[in-house]
């Protein structure tokens, strides 16, 4: 079934949207969905107070949620979802698909910070830009994204993949500082430029910087030059300098940095 949510107004206050998830909506009527609770600021409201709810199709089918409009202040959409699809025709707030276990989320606009934080499986595709801490661990926790995919067509912010523990984050635009900080496992790919310090304190996993990088941390050591690098069945043409680090944490992480886009790294070649 397809559940369409149309925002009744442009929201001003932060909204806790944990209930906007295919798992919660499954097998419910439009009336039941409209009665589900949400928090708008410190006020308890229902989905029906904030959105027009339309349901099409039979409830036996997998649930798809379509949000027509900007929900920039709504956080935690798709929280712990395990199936179905969420399609947002606009921007979304923070914590999109947090702890999700399966299913798809597609956002036509931009997403806030913490998208895919602690996710275990499933796919998130963001057509616009995304904020900081994509696929990261919650504050204080050391358990970040464990599996699944996050694809960002625009730019992403800082500390992407913080404490990442599996899965793939693909950024087709630029990325901020500290991509893959504390990373343990998994892969981060950046097509555009990186503001630097990628892989700080990583102990394992793979970061591929196909564009210009402001720097390579001094705690990374050069291994060799690779012509190509494989990411999720796809071969990315290089050549790439391959570094290992972060040695400050006895790390065995792999950092690939494009050779043609970073001529200043040629000084490393004398160590090969």
């Amino acid at each position, binding site marked *: 079934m397809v559940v369409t949510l149309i925002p009744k107004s442009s929201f001003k206050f932060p909204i806790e949207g944990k209930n906007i998830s295919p798992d919660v909506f499954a097998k419910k009527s439009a009336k039941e969905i409209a009665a589900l609770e949400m928090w708008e600021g410190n006020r308890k409201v229902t989905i029906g107070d904030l959105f027009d709810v339309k349901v099409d199709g039979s409830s036996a089918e997998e649930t798809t949620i379509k949000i027509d409009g900007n929900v920039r202040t709504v956080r935690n959409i798709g929280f712990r979802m395990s199936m179905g699809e969420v399609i947002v025709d606009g921007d979304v707030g923070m914590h999109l698909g947090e702890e999700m276990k399966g299913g798809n989320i597609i956002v036509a606009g931009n997403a806030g910070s913490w998208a895919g934080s602690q996710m275990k499986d499933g796919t998130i595709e963001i057509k616009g830009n995304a904020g900081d801490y994509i696929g990261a*661990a*919650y*504050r*204080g*926790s*050391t358990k970040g994204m464990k599996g699944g995919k996050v694809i960002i067509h625009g730019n992403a912010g800082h500390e992407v993949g913080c404490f990442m523990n599996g899965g793939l984050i693909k950024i087709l635009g630029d990325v901020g500082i500290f991509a893959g900080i504390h990373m343990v496992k998994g892969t981060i790919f950046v097509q555009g430029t990186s503001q630097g310090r990628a892989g700080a304190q990583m102990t394992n996993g793979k970061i591929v910087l196909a564009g210009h990088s402001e720097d390579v941390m001094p705690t990374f050591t050069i291994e060799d030059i690779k012509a190509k690098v494989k990411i999720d069945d796809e071969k990315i043409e290089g050549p790439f300098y391959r570094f290992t680090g972060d040695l400050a944490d006895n790390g065995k992480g792999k950092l690939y940095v494009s050779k043609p886009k970073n001529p200043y790294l040629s000084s490393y070649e004398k160590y090969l």
Partner: protein
Amino acid sequence: MSELIVKNGFVYDPLNSIDGERMDICIRDGKIVKSVKDKAKVVEASGMIVMPGGVDIHSHIAGGEVDTGRLLRPEDHVNDVEVKTAVTRSGVGFSIPSTFTTGYRYSKMGYTTVMNPSMAPLQARHTHEELSDTPMIDKGTYPLLGDWWISLEHMRDGLLEENAAHIAWMLKATRGYAIKIVNPGGLEAWGFGRNVHGLDEQVPNFGITPREIVRGLCKVNTMLNLPHTIHLHTNNLGQPGNYVTALETMKCVEDLAKDDKPALHITHIQFCAFKGEDWGRFKSGAEDIANYVNNHNHVTLDVGQVVFSNTTTMTADGPFQFGLYHLTGNKWVNHDVETETSGGIVPFQYKRSSPVHATQWSIGLEIMLLIKDPWKIFMTTDHPNAGPFFYYPKILAWYISKKARADMLERINKRAQKKSLLPSIDRELSLYELAIVTRAGQAKALGLKDKGHLGVGADADVAIYNINPERIDVSKKFVTARKAFDRAAYTIKGGEVVVKDGEIVKQVFGKTYWVDVECARNQCRTTRAKADANMKKKFKDYWTVEYENYPIREGFLHSSAPVAVKAEI
């Protein structure tokens, strides 16, 4: 004049030797009385058990460590959020709940008095601010005095009376309730990157031993006539083979006990009952500890029962916490408090699959069940060190039911299973004994005369649980019992119904107990005056805080309840 009558409950009041008798409890103006008028408000408790409000002798609920623990662990709180209601305030739970949530959750379990066992004297102000913000319960706090320079100096110089006078000053200045000693000598050594590993190892720079500290403070405790004994966390805590240290510590004050009264309380004994040379050969020393305690009357213990969960360890035992950080690799905090003590915090997960953690779980239960006299051992989790306090009902189920223990035993590490003594222990605590280990015994050990019983004159703190001992056998229906202990049918605090059916219906604020030591003789007053003058000088030399700013005014406490004691000196 408010009157209340609790009707027809099965009353368990061990201090007055009432064992499940069906009777009424009358309450007037926050006290238990003989009778009330007919128009008194009735709380119908037929088919339910009635006990005095729960008393917790050792639970870290406030102070510098607790608050730093909260700051250290946002991930601990995120999935346990309490939304505000018409009566209660919002907060967060899990291993280190916010102050309000702490009060509510204790109250929902029928607890009415909780002691915060570890306060660096310098952090007394902060601790009392948090205690003032902890609703629903009466409380008190123990200043850490085992490694305080001034006390160590007096003990080194053999000045017992001066030491007592200074300790009395400190108890008043920090509004403390008892003398807390943590790893005596070890914390002072830790300030210089060292530790002490036994009762007879010298403390660097002071030339005295942990044995002298424990004995010295035990004597001071008797001289000051404090309501509670010294409250001790032993040396070598959390190290394999440390049951020997625990036994030696108990032995070292044997001769100081008077009139068969306890002279020492060893806290979270589970952490000091480890046998074996290393972690690989780790096993339980519960039998040795229990044998000793069964044959001696000068010690009381609390368990520190491990519950398998994710929690946060926090003690003043800085060197131990540093070791724990190395063991786990988790994030950590370590702290030195000027001339007084140290502290450390490390998040910790107790896993059923770990042979060590599973054996620790077993040790706690073994000690509780092997010690024959329930007045000597009390139920705690050393919250949050061995598990958050809101797991108490789970522990009670293990105490009252062999079946409950066997169910858990089946799920733990196989090696630990084989080593565990639990299959050989048939004892199941009765509800009467349960009332001793959760309230009466603890109140008695604390010397709180108005707590832990329902006799005339006692504070009207009552817990009513929906268990009918005539209908159900709690050892078989332990799940029912656990649920009943989890959500009290009623909690009455100071004569008011504050919890009904496991929900808070009224927010009240409890008192803060502290001991006000009055010296008997003039000579002592002179010593006190001298102590004051001495302190002024020491403050200039040792502390970053001025003498005038150090003591906590009585008015600073939300609701002050001084316990006047007359010192024997």
